């Protein structure tokens, strides 16, 4: 409780502590704090900017995606219509071909039939003459009965 030399000793050591602090502690620490503050501000600004850029990029990507989707849908529908068109064409062609084949076959058949008929006619004529000859026992004059034979052949 007594005031003595200690008060001077305290004042002197206090002064030295403050001087030391002034020279070696305060300036580096405050400058580092300022630097860090600036670095943080810069970092935050950069982060905000990056966020904005990200948003922009996201928008662009979304648009691109949308466009790609649209394009692909278009392509698909195009392909689909083209495919159906091709199918139709193929069907038509096949039908035509089939009709053509059928018509060809029919023509051939008709030809065959008419030829066979011609042959048959000719043969029927001859056969009828032969038959008549046999029945009559005499030769039939072919030229005399030409008309009758013709009629007969035509009836077949």
């Amino acid at each position, binding site marked *: 409780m007594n005031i003595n030399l200690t008060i001077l000793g305290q004042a002197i050591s206090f002064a030295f502590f403050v001087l030391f602090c002034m020279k070696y502690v305060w300036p580096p*620490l405050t400058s580092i704090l300022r630097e860090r503050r600036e670095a943080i501000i810069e970092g935050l600004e950069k982060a905000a900017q990056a966020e904005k850029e990200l948003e922009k990029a996201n928008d662009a990507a979304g648009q691109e995606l949308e466009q790609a989707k649209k394009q692909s849908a278009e392509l698909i529908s195009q392909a689909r219509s083209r495919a159906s068109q091709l199918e139709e064409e193929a069907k038509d062609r096949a039908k035509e071909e089939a009709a053509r084949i059928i018509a060809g076959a029919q023509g051939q058949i008709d030809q065959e039939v008419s030829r066979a008929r011609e042959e048959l006619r000719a043969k029927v004529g001859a056969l009828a003459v032969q038959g008549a000859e046999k029945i009559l026992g005499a030769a039939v004059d072919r030229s005399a009965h030409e008309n009758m034979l013709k009629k007969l052949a035509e009836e077949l």
Partner: protein
Amino acid sequence: MATEYETSADYIQHHLTNLTYGRFPEGHWGFAHGQEDINAMGFWAINVDTMFWSLSLGLVFLAIFSWAAKKAKPGVPGGLQNFCEYAVEFVENNVAQVFGTRPNPIIGPLSLTILIWVFLMNLMDLVPVDWIPHAAALAGIPYMKVVSTTDPNATLGMSISVFLLVLYYNFKIKGPIAFGKALVTHPVPHWSMYWFNFILEMVDMLAKPLSHGLRLFGNLYAGEMIFILIALLPFYAQWLLSLPWAIFHILIICLQAFVFMILTIVYLTQAHETEEH
């Protein structure tokens, strides 16, 4: 612990006595043995324990903070580094709030030194009151007061240093004429009352360092006293009181260190204010 002493009063007295080295009235120098010797020594004595603990803790403060200053990088700070930087930033903010942004190379480091040094000295109050004195007694040292801020020499030494700085800035910023004028023209600005104003201003001025130093001393001295009184209880009951008091005291030691710092900043701010109020 009180059993070694004849009465509780002796125990308390012992714990409140500094280890004092000084000049006896007969002329030779030596350690005081009790309060009578200290009284006889008067001013020509030094409290060795106060000086030892305050210097040690001051060096601890400087060691930690200069380590932090040397290691400081703008990257992410580690634990102790972070604490030091936080303390510096806290002081810087307080200075900025009260003192403003006037350029002054000393107020920041001064406030930081006060805050941390006073806090560390106060912190010794939380060491159980008998541990260090008892260990010292075993080593043959009769007295050991661990908490430097319970010695008015320590607190007044600081507050008077601050007061000298305040005077210095009063002269430097206001100039001797304006400073002298301010001493006599307030609070009654009439020439016939100048003598009265001067007395008032003197009282006001001298009360500042006294109250500044004694406030810290009083708070810590009272806290220490209560720890000593609690230590008089039987050992199994002490924690009932010492624990809540210690927890409460954590607040006091921080608060008093902070108050001492803030008052320093306020006084220095007043010394810098040149406009009339």
